């Protein structure tokens, strides 16, 4: 009898695409595309806060956005830096504006 592994879809199937795009952006930031905008807030002896402003978040809830950002950050920057992150927030441009997220 053939043995087959069950394919498990962990979450929204689009999440993998977003994660890969974020990894790419962290490794090689592109100035020729308007989004995603990654805002990193960190300093010596301070935890890191990550904000990713992106229209593509649309149908993802905050928990999923947070997990995608963390998975991408870990892949791009490694597990040492990931332990310094205490906030990973995904926002659409409208949400970012409403929350008053400012960046350079």
């Amino acid at each position, binding site marked *: 009898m053939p043995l087959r592994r069950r394919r498990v879809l962990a979450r929204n199937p689009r999440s993998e695409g977003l994660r890969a795009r974020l990894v790419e952006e962290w490794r090689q930031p592109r100035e020729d595309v308007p989004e995603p905008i990654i805002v990193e807030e960190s300093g010596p002896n301070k935890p890191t806060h990550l904000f990713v402003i992106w229209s593509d978040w649309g149908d993802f809830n905050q*928990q999923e956005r*947070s997990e995608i950002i963390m998975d991408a950050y870990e892949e791009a920057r490694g*597990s040492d830096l*990931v*332990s310094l992150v*205490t*906030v*990973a927030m*995904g926002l659409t441009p409208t949400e970012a504006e409403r929350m008053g997220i400012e960046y350079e």
Partner: protein
Amino acid sequence: MTLRRRLAQQLESVQDLELASESRSWEGLELLLVGKTSGGTYLMGFAAEMLLKCAYFRFSGAAPADAVKPRLGPARKPGQLLIPVVPHEQYHSPRFWALLHLAARRSRHAPLAAIMEAQLVQRMRRLHQNWWVEMRYRAIEPSPLEVRSVFDDVSWLRANYVLLWR
């Protein structure tokens, strides 16, 4: 405006969770006192879950007004590293939050006093045995001993909440 719309307008904050925990705890107690033990224990378990999350977030530097959901993803990573065999159960497990909190404190050279640490581990392990977020889909009534355990463990947590993160 509907309740859902009002709630969805703003992300819940650490302080929201602390206040909600207080409400759920008293509502749970009201239910227990009139013999509605299934609903009572369910609400009390949520009260504990919220306090454990807040204790971890507060210790990690969160201010009362900081949003909770963007802190869940960052909590999952140290969880995988520090307590890999303990599932977070969609971030609802009291055992996960208690052990993560202790591991985080130890990794930052700020462990709790030994007696407090032992109490937290024992009580949250027991709470984990007597409360499960999936209870909402079950019609089983908890036994008097289970109800008493949940009440005792949640009450202990409420009494010691501030000591956990200060």
